């Protein structure tokens, strides 16, 4: 790791306060030092200049006045002259020495109390140059040696050397340095104080925010939020806080505009929303406060909503499942589901939803995995409890997102009780039909009984009277008796199966069978009433999924209604067209039965209502008006349709259509 990298990795770890302080200090120091250096340079150079000017002034003055003394070789006057110049008032501090040499380099006069050191004579004045300056050493002090030529006319006759103490400048520079150092220290101290105040002003709210947001991340929303000038909250001031139906328009701007027609409502003066007024730090504090309030508000709402739905889920009277779309397994189930299905919760979670209803659930899962949207209703599906006990349910399935995955929420209603009640109602209606049928059945059963009776008496009379019966006659009689017993037994069987309570499970039924069964019970009675049947039953009819005896009930109801309709318009002995036509067939995957009568038909307005319960056109006491309502219910149970086509005066056709049973389902059930 290079130094550069180390610095850049360490830099973010230093506190904001230190960063501020150090950078301000560095800036101030740099500026101060730069100013000090520049000032010192200017000062020292101008001082030196000044010194030189004064030095040269002295030198030139001595040279001017001393020329004549040199010509005269008047050494004493020359001495007086240079002593006068050197000792003149403050000059004595400044001037270290003055000496004069002639053209040959011979010292004529000097102000030193001792012999002139040889090294002072190093500053020689080149010919033609009026003066020269050089730094020399006198004793252990530095002096500037300034040389000026002494001219007489055009000729140089000697040189004046003036030595100026450098110490004088150094004292001045020293004073200056002290002053500058003091100034810089003062600036540094002020800078430290200022920057620490400023950084405290900035970093204090930032650290407060950090501390608060840490607390909030941990879920502690109850800490007092005292930021800047802020006072703590009083939640009761916000109507949206307690009423979760009310949107908060101040904070939740994203919701506005979602529904364009909605009027944009706002609290007149929100007790919590802070407009950003003040410097950036105050703005940050306000913005943070707004954010926390918004989070607090919506977190509370979320929690409330979650609690609401969780309690709905847990206390729901119906089982609810959350099923994963991809795997088809149960991800969650409410207590009612474990109770109804009889699986412990641990076993239910992770179980394939298909296991609860192998016949019907696949369609539901397929619908959603293939991207079907919206909620779907699946009525009357067969499910199994733990142990295999079947029961009927209605299912509502809606797609949801559960823990980040696509899932279905399935609410299940146990309708077994309802179906049993239905079955009881149907059974009761069937018993009523059975009563209505009994006269016809008596006719039917009387026939074989008569034949048997006559046959057996015939045999006994022949025996009593010792009459010879031809063998083929005898055989014929015995066969006939046996056939008639079978016939009676068959009628009783039909009757019994009609009266039997249906299973929950549907069976495959050829629609011709219930038609024949009903006719076997009532045909003779109808014919005695001069009502004839025209049968047109299709061969090789596809089976339908239904209960045979409920279909018999339906057909009996229709046939009995047809008879009543015919009896309404004509009398048994009065002739006229008294016919009931029954036709079966299949068309486009549907199997149909038509019952057509030659009665008076049904008014258009009544056609709408005849399938409603308690609607009857019969006189009071003649019927409850439940027959066709139950018929309708039974047909709907088998996913069938019933349609009525009636013309006043020309009879009525009831046409029932059922979906043909799927061959695959037939084999699996």
């Amino acid at each position, binding site marked *: 790791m290079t130094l550069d990298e180390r610095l850049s990795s360490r830099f973010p770890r230093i506190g904001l306060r230190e960063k501020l302080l150090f950078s301000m200090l560095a800036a101030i120091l740099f500026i101060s030092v730069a100013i000090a250096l520049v000032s010192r340079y200017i000062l020292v150079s101008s001082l030196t200049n000044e010194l030189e000017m004064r030095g040269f002034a002295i030198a030139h003055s001595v040279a001017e006045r001393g020329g004549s003394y040199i010509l005269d070789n008047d050494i004493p006057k020359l001495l007086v002259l240079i002593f006068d110049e050197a000792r003149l008032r403050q000059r004595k501090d400044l001037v270290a020495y003055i000496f004069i040499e002639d053209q040959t380099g011979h010292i004529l006069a000097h102000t030193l109390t001792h012999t002139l050191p040889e090294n002072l004579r190093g500053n020689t004045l080149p010919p033609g140059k009026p003066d020269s300056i050089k730094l020399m050493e006198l004793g252990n002090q530095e002096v500037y040696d300034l040389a000026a030529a002494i001219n007489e006319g055009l000729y140089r006759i000697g040189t004046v050397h003036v030595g100026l103490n450098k110490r004088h400048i150094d004292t001045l520079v020293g004073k200056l340095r002290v002053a500058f150092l003091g100034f810089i220290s003062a600036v540094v101290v002020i800078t430290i104080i200022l920057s620490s105040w400023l950084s405290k002003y900035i970093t204090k709210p930032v650290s407060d925010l950090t501390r608060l947001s840490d607390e909030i991340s941990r879920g502690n929303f109850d800490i007092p939020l005292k930021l800047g000038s802020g006072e703590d909250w009083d939640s009761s001031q916000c109507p949206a806080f307690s009423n979760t139906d009310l949107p908060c328009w101040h904070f939740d701007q994203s919701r506005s505009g979602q529904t364009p027609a909605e009027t944009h409502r706002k609290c007149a003066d929100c007790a919590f929303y802070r407009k950003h007024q003040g410097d950036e730090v105050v703005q940050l504090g306000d913005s943070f406060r707004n954010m926390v309030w918004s989070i607090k508000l919506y977190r509370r709402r979320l929690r409330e909503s979650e609690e609401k739905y969780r309690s709905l889920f847990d206390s729901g009277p119906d089982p609810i499942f959350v099923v994963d779309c991809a795997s088809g397994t149960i991800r969650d189930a409410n207590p009612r589901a474990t109770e109804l299905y009889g699986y412990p919760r641990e076993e239910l979670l992770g179980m394939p939803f298909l296991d609860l209803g192998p016949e019907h659930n696949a369609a539901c899962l397929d619908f959603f995995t293939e991207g079907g949207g919206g909620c779907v209703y699946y009525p009357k599906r067969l499910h199994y409890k733990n142990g295999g006990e079947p029961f009927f349910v209605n299912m509502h399935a809606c797609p949801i997102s559960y823990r980040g995955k696509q899932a279905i929420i399935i609410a299940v209603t146990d309708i077994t009780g309802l179906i049993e009640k239905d079955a009881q109602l149907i059974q009761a209606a069937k018993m009523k039909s059975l009563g209505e049928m009994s006269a016809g059945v008596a006719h039917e059963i*009387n*026939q*074989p*009984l*008569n*034949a048997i*009776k*006559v*046959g057996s*008496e*015939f045999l006994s*009379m*022949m025996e009593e009277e010792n*009459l010879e*019966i031809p063998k083929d*006659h005898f055989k*014929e*009689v015995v066969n*006939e008796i046996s*056939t*008639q017993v079978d016939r009676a037994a068959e009628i009783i069987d039909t009757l019994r199966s009609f009266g039997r309570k249906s299973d929950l499970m549907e069976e495959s039924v050829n629609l011709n069978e219930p038609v024949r069964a009903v006719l076997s019970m009532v045909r003779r009675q109808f*014919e*005695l009433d*001069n009502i*004839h049947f025209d049968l047109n039953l299709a061969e090789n009819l596809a089976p339908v999924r239904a209960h045979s005896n409920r279909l018999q009930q339906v057909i009996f109801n229709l046939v009995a209604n047809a008879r009543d309709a015919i009896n309404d318009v004509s009398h048994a*002995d009065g002739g006229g067209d008294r016919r009931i036509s029954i036709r079966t067939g299949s068309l486009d995957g549907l199997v149909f039965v038509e019952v057509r009568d030659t009665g008076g038909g049904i008014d258009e307005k009544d056609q709408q209502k005849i399938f409603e319960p308690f609607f009857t056109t019969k006189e009071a006491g003649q019927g409850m008006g439940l027959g066709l309502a139950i018929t309708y219910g039974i047909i709907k149970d088998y996913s069938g349709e019933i349609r009525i086509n009636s013309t006043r005066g020309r009879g009525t056709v009831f046409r029932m259509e059922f979906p043909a049973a799927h061959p695959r389902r037939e084999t699996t059930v």
Partner: protein
Amino acid sequence: MNDKVLVIDDERPTLKMFTLLLTAYGYEVLTAENGREGVEIFTRESPELVLTDIKMPVMDGIAFALIAARDHPEIPILLMTGFADQRERANGLDALIHDVVTKPFSLADIRRAVVDALNGVSRDDTNLRRYA
């Protein structure tokens, strides 16, 4: 020449049994399944006796009896019925009808009624005997 007896009943098995029985007793048996057929055979064959069920589709026994008695009042007609109310209906037709037997009847009754009717025994006597 055997006596011709016309039997009218819509129940084929019963009809068959009557045929066998009466054949065994030496009658020639004609059969019809309803009143209308009966009228046809009655007018064509002029039987000595008619045995008819009352309740039948198309044309019932009573309607038949009314037609038959209008053309040939001398031919005795025996009515059979399984229903009490049908018997009531027959009560007003005594003039036309020789006898009424109630189902389920015994063959002995039928045979006696047939023999009596053919032998011209007063129907009042048989009636008296039946309802005594």
